[in-house]
């Protein structure tokens, strides 16, 4: 009997996006629940047997009741099985979002039969009348030193059942950055435990470890720098032992991009704009972290400022990091402000300070010059 699973993880519901202020942050927050609904929709469309969620459903155990209820509500549009394990963000502690979910359900009509919170270690879940066995690695604390999937190797399940492992942690060999990370998972676990599929969570990008072992990644990107997030995996297993088919289905709404751009002249600004246009057909779905470098004169800086102001309005979110962009006034800039008189004298005094590496107010002097230039431009344009 073939089994179709939707593998997803790291929903991080309740995440607040501290670095994305204002409406953009609120939109990102709200979108995460919407994306869960999208996952349910995909599962429905694919007629999946179950959605397996490999941990970190919630950003923290201490999410608000409202978030918890919204999440449970979002599950309702898929009537197949929902299988959850805790992750390092929402471990099955003595008191956790999971125990509270139990209370929420208890306060309603009881927990629906298709929603499974796997919170007890080393207890397989049998679905499809025993045709599908889910082996959970249950995190009962945030960080485990031992490999919680070790018991998969000896887990007893009914014969003929599809054997699927569900775990949250780091396959260290494949995640160099996580070599010191806790919650280790042995790289060959699918093989040693005879798993048809090992559904992993924790890594926010979609990542294949081997034919039977995948990180689904977060369905809705939540940070700059994640590699290939925004997907769920549709996993098809025809029969026990058969190699699984894994299909990557994009569901994420927002596109997060970070890059560095050097500005040395007006053409660089044009090129930057072209690049921004190419990133996403809908700029309202695009979040950009733009690190500017280079040396520009005031005139060019003014231009860059104007252009980026336009992009700031157009994009969902633009984070400009221009510490490495040096605004250096040219003689023309300064002449433009004034060629003589006290204004020019002030300009020269400020320039001297801005260029003096020992001046503690060097940056302030530079900022002051820029402002003066801007005022000058404003007055010029007003008089035109």
């Amino acid at each position, binding site marked *: 009997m073939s089994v179709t699973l939707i593998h997803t993880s790291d929903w991080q519901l309740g995440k607040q996006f501290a670095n994305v202020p204002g409406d953009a942050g609120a939109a990102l927050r709200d979108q995460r629940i919407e994306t869960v609904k999208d996952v349910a929709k995909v599962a429905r469309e694919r007629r999946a047997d179950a959605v397996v969620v490999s941990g970190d459903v919630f*950003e*923290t155990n201490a*999410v608000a009741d409202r978030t918890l209820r919204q999440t449970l509500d979002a599950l309702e549009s898929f009537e197949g099985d929902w299988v959850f394990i805790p992750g390092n963000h929402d471990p099955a502690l003595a008191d*956790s979002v999971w125990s509270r979910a139990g209370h929420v359900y208890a306060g309603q009509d009881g927990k629906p039969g298709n929603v499974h919170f796997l919170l007890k270690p080393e207890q397989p879940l049998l679905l499809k009348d025993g045709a599908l066995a889910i082996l959970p690695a249950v995190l009962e604390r945030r960080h485990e030193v031992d490999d919680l999937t070790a018991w998969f190797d000896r887990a007893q399940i009914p014969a003929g059942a599809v054997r699927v492992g569900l775990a949250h942690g780091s396959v260290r060999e494949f995640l160099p950055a996580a070599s010191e990370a806790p919650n280790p998972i042995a790289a060959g676990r699918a093989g040693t435990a005879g798993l048809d599929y090992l559904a992993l969570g924790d890594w926010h990008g979609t990542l294949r470890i081997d034919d039977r072992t995948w990180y689904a990644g977060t369905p809705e990107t939540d940070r700059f720098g994640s590699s290939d997030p925004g997907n769920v995996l549709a996993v098809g297993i025809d029969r026990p032992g058969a190699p699984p088919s894994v299909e990557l289905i994009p569901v994420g709404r927002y596109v997060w991009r970070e890059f560095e751009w050097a500005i040395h002249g007006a053409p660089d600004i044009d090129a930057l704009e072209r690049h921004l246009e190419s990133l996403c057909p809908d700029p309202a779905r695009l979040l950009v972290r733009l690190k500017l470098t280079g040396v520009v004169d005031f005139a060019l800086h003014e231009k860059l400022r104007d252009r980026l102001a336009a992009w700031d309005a157009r994009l969902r979110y633009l984070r400009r990091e221009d510490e490495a962009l040096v605004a250096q006034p040219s003689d023309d800039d300064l002449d433009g402000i004034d060629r003589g*008189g006290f204004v020019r*004298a002030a300009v020269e005094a400020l320039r001297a300070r801005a260029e003096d590496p020992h001046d503690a107010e060097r940056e302030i002097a530079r900022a002051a010059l820029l402002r*003066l230039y801007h005022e000058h431009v404003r007055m010029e344009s007003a008089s035109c």
Partner: protein
Amino acid sequence: MLIRRIAVRNFRKHLAGVVIDGLEPGLTVIAGDNEEGKSTLLKALQAALFDRYNLSGKAMGDMLPFGSKVRPEIDVDFEIGQTRYRLKKGFHQSPSARLESDDRHWQNDSAEERLRELLGFSPPGKGPAKEEHRGLSGLLWVEQGRAFAPLELNRDTRDALREAIAGEVGQVTGGERGRNLLAAVQKHHDRYYTLTGLEKRALKEARAAAEEANDECERLEGELSHYDAQVDRLEKLKRTLARYESTGQLANAQGDLEKAQKAAKELEDLEGGIATAAAEMRTAESSLELVRSKWKHRRDDAKRLEAVEADARNAEREFADLDEALRAADTAHEQADGNLKTARSAFASARSKRLAAQRELKRAEIAVALNELTRKLEQAQKIDAGIARDREAAARIRIDEKELKALKKNESELDRQEAALEAVATTLEFSPDANQSVRVDGRELAVDRPYRVTERTSLELVGFGRLDVTPGGEDVRTRRAKVEELQNSLNADLAQRQYCSVGEAETAFRQKSQKLKEIETAEALLTGIAPAGLEELRNAVAGRREDLAACTSDLTIAPASVEEAKRAEAEAASEEAEAETEQSEAEKEWGIRQKTSSAVREEWTTVKGSLRLHSQEKERLAVKLDQDRGITSDADLENAVDAASRGRDRQAEALQVLAERRERMFPDLVRGELDRAREACSTLKDQIDRDKRQARDLEIELRTVGQQGLGEQVGQKRREREVARQELERLALDAKAWKLLRDTLREAERKARETFLAPVRERLQPYLERLFPSTNLLLDEDGLEIKSLRRGTVDEPFTSLSIGAREQIAVLARLALADLLREKGRPVALILDDALVNCDDDRFRRMGTALRHAAERVQILILTCHEARYQTLGARTIRLIDCSEPRH
């Protein structure tokens, strides 16, 4: 610019015409009385140079003399640089303008255009030229009554001055643009800072918001951290509770307790047996103790009776001895008493004898003393009588030493005067014939010696006759008179004292002295015998007689001799001393006997009492012992002691056996184990209960806290904190940048002002020093208007100064600006229409000096009606009245 000639016809007052010619460089005074048209002259000059020739309307009408329809004409000859120009303008009728130089001429509009070029002014679009249209003249030509007003430079003058200044210091001010920029920057600055440089609400609120967000975030993080810790605690509690279950810890503890309780029960039973045995043992010991005590009392009583009997016997013996001693002592005492009485009687007798002997001795001594005193009295009385006689004899001689000396002195003076008379007397020496003699006053003279005649003397020379001799000279008479006077005086003194001569007086005095000495000697003798006086001596004799009478009643018995009396007294004293010694001995003996007798009697009484007590005690003890023995005999009592002792030993042995059994059970261990097991069980139960309760409480608490979504709140707060922090950073940088920009611009502007006005200050200061020493004039660098006069650190606004000061300062400023403009090649001439009417004489003189100084470089024309005053300046004066043209 140098104005050479002005000719005016048909212009306002000057209907007849006036020509001022031959104007020179330097200072020229054009004097005219009021209404003579000197101000009109300035108006004509302004009209010629600045008004359009084809001016019409009211302005043109104003040029016409009242009620005339003539053609006002004005000619002005002037020089600019090296070029001489002649300007002729006619208004109203056939208006025209013509400007000629030596080699060119310009007509009408081109003439006026050329004038504009030369003088640098901006004519009005239409209408008459006003101050602002007259270029530099607007500044330098001062109309009557306006000298004290602010300069109000027109645009052309300002530009010219700016150009002149810029020619020296370059462009330093920022102009309109700079001011606008600074104003804009100031506006930005003011969004963040108050006038006094304090932060405004925008910054303060951002800072407060950042701090608040941070505090709130930390608070929430604390709460979340507490929540996490509580979750961990719950986890631990649950694990602990599970461990209790899985290890059966409680059941084990309960098993231990039961075992310990059983052992403890056994121990308790044994200890009950021991307690019973110990109680029995104590009873046996009490019984033994009782009979032993009885037996001991019996023996003690017997011993006591024996001792009392012995004591009574001893006391009886002692009493007998004492009784005898008491009788002996009483006998001795009586004997001593008799002895004492005898001795006392003997002593009294001896004492009365001695007193009698003493009285007799005293009487003998008084009798002796009386005899002596009586003898002295008689002797003294005799001497006293002698003294009385001598005093009487001496009193009869009446001359004393002083008087005698006076007599002697007078006699001596008489002798000396007589000798002197002798010396001057006439000496007659006679050598008569035998038997012949000489007689004087019938008496014969001894002729063997010379005869001195001191007065007229009649000598009878026997045998011859009479010879009258008269000694010559006044001196003999005087001396003689003196001698006679002295002789008379001496004789009188002697006669008064009844002496014949001085010798007799002296003898009498010597006798008197002798008597007095004898009296003195007798008195000394008397004093030796009766030092206290004769009367006292008499009293002493009487006193002794009374003493003697007092010594005895029988005066008939003559007193014995002193020696005898002394001997009798010594004997009596010796006898008395002996009797006293004997009496003393007897008293001492009596005392000893008395004491002995008392002591023995006291002891006798004591022993007698003691004897009675012993007897009573003996009797009591004997009765008691008899009674006790009647109840229990001594032998029975002794047997009862032995029986009780054996019973006690048996009980002790039984107790020993039980105690050894108990020791073998290690009772401390048994009890310790019971305590431990009981406590362990109870503690464990408590702990489990507590853990369960805590876990339940924690679950409830965590469920409540969990619902609040602390994690999300923290996330949100962190976001807000970040936003607030970034906003604060942005605002702070923005504020600092605007502040720095504003400060830098202001400082630059301040420096620029200082630099810009330097050329003006440089030229103005020497003029100012003449009238207002140690002051500075502050000018507005934009309008170049006079702002204030600075004295020390105080700025006085120009408008607050007196009219006189304003007038003077404004003229000086014009002189300075004229200097500057002239140096930069501008056509400059100064015309002042009665500009110094408010000066006192001193100021006027100083202003005159300043004007003369300025006129060395710039032509200055002064229009005035105070000719006399200006004559003091030594300037060339032109009287307007002399310049009138004859009417055409």
